[in-house]
């Protein structure tokens, strides 16, 4: 049986898709058969970040509608063993994701995968609810700013009340906090919320902190999940995050401003 993990946030543009891509790659690199599923119907971009947009023939909605089978729609990654993408449709509307259709697809994926990583659309509407409904675990992606943290809090409330596990009164969805676009300099200058404040406000255990990084933009543009960009700070942070998810002990890194930043602050450079 696969473990279903939703990557969600409430607020848009905080790094869900970036996180889904690197997280799925990281799990596959560690030998787990993994599929990344794009729930952002109408705005698909997981395939762009995964660099497989030119290989999309059929999509999630085709599978739900019975117009294609899963094997036709799944795209096998060319760089990493054990990794697949189930792309979203660019042309359909979100209502195409029915509860029954999603259930059936996830059930079928469960038979052959270890992990199913669901990239949620922003907001708290249908698409986001569908992405989280069947989840066993959730990565709550938050930026260090008040509005993002507030939206994450709201999504946590919905997970705790509207997910299948909540409705069927099973063990609750296991929650993990992922802070992305963390800029220690701006935190120390009081322009952004600090890591400890965010953990305190949300009351959810921290899985990882991903620094604000130019490497993310470069990698996304190249269609390479940043975890595959050797030596990049964000890539290393995602590798650590995956290791922690799988039970390894790893200290959190990239939490303090670099020397350069510190000096710049003092000398106004």
């Amino acid at each position, binding site marked *: 049986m696969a473990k279903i993990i939703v990557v969600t946030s409430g607020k848009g543009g905080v790094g869900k898709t970036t996180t889904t891509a690197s997280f799925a790659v990281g799990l596959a690199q560690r030998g787990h058969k993994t599929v990344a599923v794009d729930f952002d119907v109408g705005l698909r971009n997981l395939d762009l970040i995964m660099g497989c947009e030119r290989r999309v023939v059929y999509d999630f909605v085709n599978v739900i509608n019975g117009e294609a089978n899963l094997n036709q729609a799944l795209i096998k990654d060319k760089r990493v063993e054990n990794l697949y993408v189930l792309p979203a449709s660019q042309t359909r509307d979100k209502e195409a994701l029915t509860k029954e259709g999603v259930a059936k697809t996830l059930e079928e994926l469960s038979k052959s995968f270890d992990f199913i990583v669901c990239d949620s659309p922003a907001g*708290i*509407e249908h698409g986001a609810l569908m992405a989280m409904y069947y989840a066993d675990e959730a990565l709550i992606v938050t930026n260090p700013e008040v509005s993002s943290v*507030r*939206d994450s*809090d*709201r999504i*946590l*409330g*919905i997970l*705790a*009340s*509207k997910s299948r596990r909540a409705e069927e009164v099973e063990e*609750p969805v296991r929650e993990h906090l992922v802070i992305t676009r963390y800029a220690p300099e701006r935190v120390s200058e009081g322009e952004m919320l600090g890591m400890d404040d965010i953990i305190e*406000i949300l*009351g959810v255990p921290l899985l990882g902190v991903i620094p604000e990084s130019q490497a993310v933009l470069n990698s996304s543009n190249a269609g390479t999940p940043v975890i595959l960009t050797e030596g990049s700070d964000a890539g290393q942070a995602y590798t650590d995050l995956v290791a922690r998810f799988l039970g390894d002990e790893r200290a959190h890194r990239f939490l303090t401003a670099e020397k350069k930043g510190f000096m710049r602050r003092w000398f106004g450079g």
Partner: protein
Amino acid sequence: MSSPASQSSAALPFDLKGSVFTLSVMHLHRLNLEDIGLRLDEKVSQAPQFFANMPVVLDLGGLSGPATSTDFAGLIALLREKGLVPVAARRGTESAQAAAIEAGLAILSEAPGGSRAHQREVSPPSESPTKAPDPTPARAAADSAGARHATRVVAQPVRSGQQIYAAGGDLIALRMVSAGAEILADGNIHILGPLRGRALAGAQGDETAHIICQSLEAELVSIAGRYRLFDEIDKSVLGQAVHIYLDGDRLVIDRI
């Protein structure tokens, strides 16, 4: 397991019992459906799950101009379309009430014991962005005053956008109450985590109700309608474990 014949009350098709509910009240000013629709869309989009199947009471007290049953039928259809469930009306002129009845609504009479003043006080002047209507206790039956319900225990954090009401009894929150969340109880409220949202004890007017919390960071605290907003809370008690109660008309916040 249980044979209906063995219990005399179970032999009856139903029992009629009084109960007390918190209902959201929509204070109508004009019956312009287009305006109401637009405003509702705004509100609903901010917290769709909060509004889904939410019962509402229409307050006709502020309604200017005449209202016909056709007006109400249109309004009811609109509210239902937006996911709300209009159940009753209150106040307003006799003819407005008659029109509301004709459109299928019940009429709620004023609760005894100065509940109007209470209701005005519990809704703070600034509008919370997360929800539109102010929760106002309404008496669904006159003989409910003595009803005492079990304590409601909330084991999970109360998150932004959520509202929890312990009708007729106490509420114990074992985790935090986030900013943008609201908890209400007719009795006492105990919060074992930080209180960052709103807590309203004695929601039916019980002036002997207390609030106890481990860390006071609240947006609003209220007992029997006497409330204090975050900005009005003495800085020396912020972040502290506190005991909140009424001394006469005065809301007291003591460190514990």
